[in-house]
């Protein structure tokens, strides 16, 4: 794309008032910007600029209307190509817009403290309390290894239980959900995105806090959550063919 093209940020309803350049077809409008060869990311600096522009533009659109985000870096050679795209996928885009109308994406990242959880489990596990009997060194070693393994399994089980309980609760407070690979390798518990009606955003946010208070057992698991949003529905527009 050496001599440039039309960068497509996203698709909105034609009825939406958008103060950006757009190309319309039927009920739809594609929000675009002409980028010369210079504007296309061919090095790290430009890539960062374009990434920020992509996100900021979509957020601006989101503040006023429903938007289908295009994959970052989508460039059409000409205006007529964009119109053809809208024509070819018109009904698909239109129905996606209807499905997402009045809804936004919220991100949730929950972390915990596996060490604290381990201590909590060890302290509360009657099966792991050492018997008063004197063991020989070999027996003691085997016992300690078995205990370690058993505690490790319980920690993992607790992690899954906490994650699924939180997920279930948040699924009830949203209309769609996507679970991602854990963002934090060490202390990650759950990383997910939720599609939330605008009218339910407060309930969603307070729902997260409520769940964590409920499950943390007075701080035993060191649960903490980062809630972020509202975002354009990046995770709720699948591939279209």
């Amino acid at each position, binding site marked *: 794309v050496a001599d440039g093209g039309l960068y497509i940020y996203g698709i909105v309803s034609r009825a939406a008032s958008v103060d950006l350049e757009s190309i319309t077809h039927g009920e739809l409008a594609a929000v675009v910007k002409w980028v010369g060869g210079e504007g296309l990311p061919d*090095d790290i600096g430009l890539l960062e600029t374009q*990434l*920020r522009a992509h996100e900021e533009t979509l957020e601006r659109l989101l503040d006023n209307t429903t938007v289908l985000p295009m994959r970052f870096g989508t460039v059409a050679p000409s205006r007529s190509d964009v119109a053809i795209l809208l024509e070819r996928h018109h009904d698909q885009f239109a129905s996606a817009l209807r499905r997402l109308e009045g809804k936004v994406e919220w991100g949730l990242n929950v972390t915990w403290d596996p060490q604290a959880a381990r201590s909590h489990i060890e302290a509360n596990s009657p099966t792991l309390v050492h018997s008063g009997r004197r063991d020989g060194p070999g027996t003691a070693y085997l016992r300690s290894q078995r205990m370690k393994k058993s505690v490790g399994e319980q920690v993992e089980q607790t992690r899954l239980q906490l994650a699924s309980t939180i997920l279930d609760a948040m699924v009830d407070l949203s209309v769609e959900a996507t679970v991602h690979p854990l963002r934090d390798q060490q202390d990650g518990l759950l990383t997910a995105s939720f599609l939330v009606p605008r009218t339910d955003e407060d309930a969603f946010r307070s729902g997260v806090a409520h769940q*964590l208070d409920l499950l943390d057992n007075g701080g035993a698991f060191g649960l903490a959550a980062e809630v*972020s949003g509202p975002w354009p529905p990046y995770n709720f527009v699948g591939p279209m063919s």
Partner: protein
Amino acid sequence: MESRHTLERRDTTNLADILDRILDKGIVIAGDITINLVDIELLTIKLRLLIASADKAREMGINWWESDPWLSKQANGHSDTKSLEERLERIETVLQRLEVPRG
């Protein structure tokens, strides 16, 4: 309702967060030859590596990327590859002109 457990934000300043949020997301039109998805895969991989390693490296006093023309424009003013290409082109043009009378 704010709990001691939760932190809320809509932070667009952190590049690593932006990468996580928007890369590999959004509508892809499969099989549309009229649409070019700019080939950014390699660049984004390098950018991810850069973000992941920059903080660690800085702690160790390493800042090679700041002088790497491929990674940092500031280091060398303007796009070096481009000016090199242009210079090469000029030189080739001159050479061709020189060759014509001889040929």
